[in-house]
């Protein structure tokens, strides 16, 4: 028995697994759990599908916890699933969204790293795969996607926190996610990934300072998204293309999703901006998730209305 799950607290992996089972049990018509693969340490990778069985409907894919130490990110994915199921039939917007589209939610992308951050090293970031000819463990999963993978020299050392892995999609976790997205590409109209520690809403590209063809659309969505997010607590977010808003780098999931044809791809960097860093107190989970929920709902509404 893994102990009690709470949306107001950080939950370890065992609690999250039990919670996924509970979500399916409590909402059998609305939630299903899909095992999309396993990790390097043979843990399961679960996606929760929220919505109808109809695979042809528009869908949004969301993932959390690509970096192990960013605990607020999995907390948000759990919050999202909870709110979606709880408010369906009560909240007009959520009801409309779930009546017409599906959400695929990967609550923890980097499961092995997340477990390690709970049990051994709170500051762990990468996954836990072994590297040939090196004692250093782990690959930064957000550098392992097949997009401009070979173009930045500083990610070649397995001992670096930003190590990109020996090949694109070399990591079982990345491969499982990319295979799943590729096989559902017809329906997936938006990709959203959740990080922490920056208060930003970012969009492609990060590997180049060039702007994407639908830059104006993405910039407008992001701008309105952060405005909506600021309403309840006046939290100040920044939005923009990633390369110029933070710095250029390669192999990111957002650029990969975009290059695959998902033309609405975003990365949230949730709170805070540095006072607590990766150690955001649990007392701030609720407010962070509530405000983020507003922005995500706005993006979903936009996708429902405007994507073909």
């Amino acid at each position, binding site marked *: 028995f893994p102990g009690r799950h709470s949306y*107001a607290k*950080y939950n370890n992996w065992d609690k999250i697994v039990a919670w996924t089972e509970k979500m399916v049990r409590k909402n059998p018509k609305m939630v299903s759990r899909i095992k999309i693969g396993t990790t390097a340490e043979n843990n399961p990778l679960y996606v929760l599908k929220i919505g109808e069985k109809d695979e042809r409907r528009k869908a949004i894919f969301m993932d959390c916890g690509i970096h192990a130490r960013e605990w607020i990110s999995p907390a948000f994915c759990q919050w999202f699933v909870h709110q979606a199921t709880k408010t369906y039939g009560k909240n007009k917007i959520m009801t409309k969204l779930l009546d017409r589209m599906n959400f695929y939610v990967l609550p923890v992308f980097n499961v092995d790293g997340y477990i390690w951050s709970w049990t051994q090293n709170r500051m762990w970031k990468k996954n836990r795969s072994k590297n040939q000819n090196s004692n250093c463990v782990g690959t930064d999963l957000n550098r392992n996607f097949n997009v401009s993978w070979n173009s930045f020299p500083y990610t070649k050392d397995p001992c670096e926190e930003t190590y990109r892995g020996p090949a694109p999609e070399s990591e079982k976790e990345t491969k499982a996610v990319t295979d799943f997205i590729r096989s559902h590409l017809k329906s997936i109209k938006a990709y959203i990934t959740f990080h922490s520690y920056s208060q930003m809403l970012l969009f492609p590209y990060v590997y180049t300072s060039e702007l994407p063809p639908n830059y104006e659309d993405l910039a407008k969505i992001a701008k309105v998204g952060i405005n909506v997010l600021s309403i309840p607590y006046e939290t100040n977010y920044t939005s923009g293309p990633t390369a110029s808003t933070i710095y250029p780098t390669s192999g990111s999931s957002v650029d990969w999703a975009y290059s695959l044809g998902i033309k609405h791809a975003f990365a949230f960097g949730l709170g805070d901006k540095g006072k607590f860093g990766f150690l955001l*107190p649990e007392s701030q989970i609720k407010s962070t998730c509530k405000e983020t929920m507003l922005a995500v709902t706005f993006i979903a509404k936009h996708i429902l209305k405007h994507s073909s």
Partner: protein
Amino acid sequence: IAPVRFDREKVLRVKPQDEKQANVIKDLAKANQLDFWYPDATYHVAANMTVDFRVSEKESQLIQSALDQNKVHYEILMHDVQEEVKKQFDVKED
């Protein structure tokens, strides 16, 4: 294996004013174990960028002295990371 502890480890915030000061941080990162929180690697450190990193208790004195010597302004965001790790669990079980 005993879990890693972060007793008296610090998180420093530095804003290098120019390329020279950015290089001071890059040089310190070569010789010390700095865990970059933002940006995520030394490579990205540049003038006028806010740089946050975690440093061990042992190395923090040396780092702070080097920053002082080179007149690089810094602020200490966290004095004891282990304390902050403990404090993150500030919601009691129902």
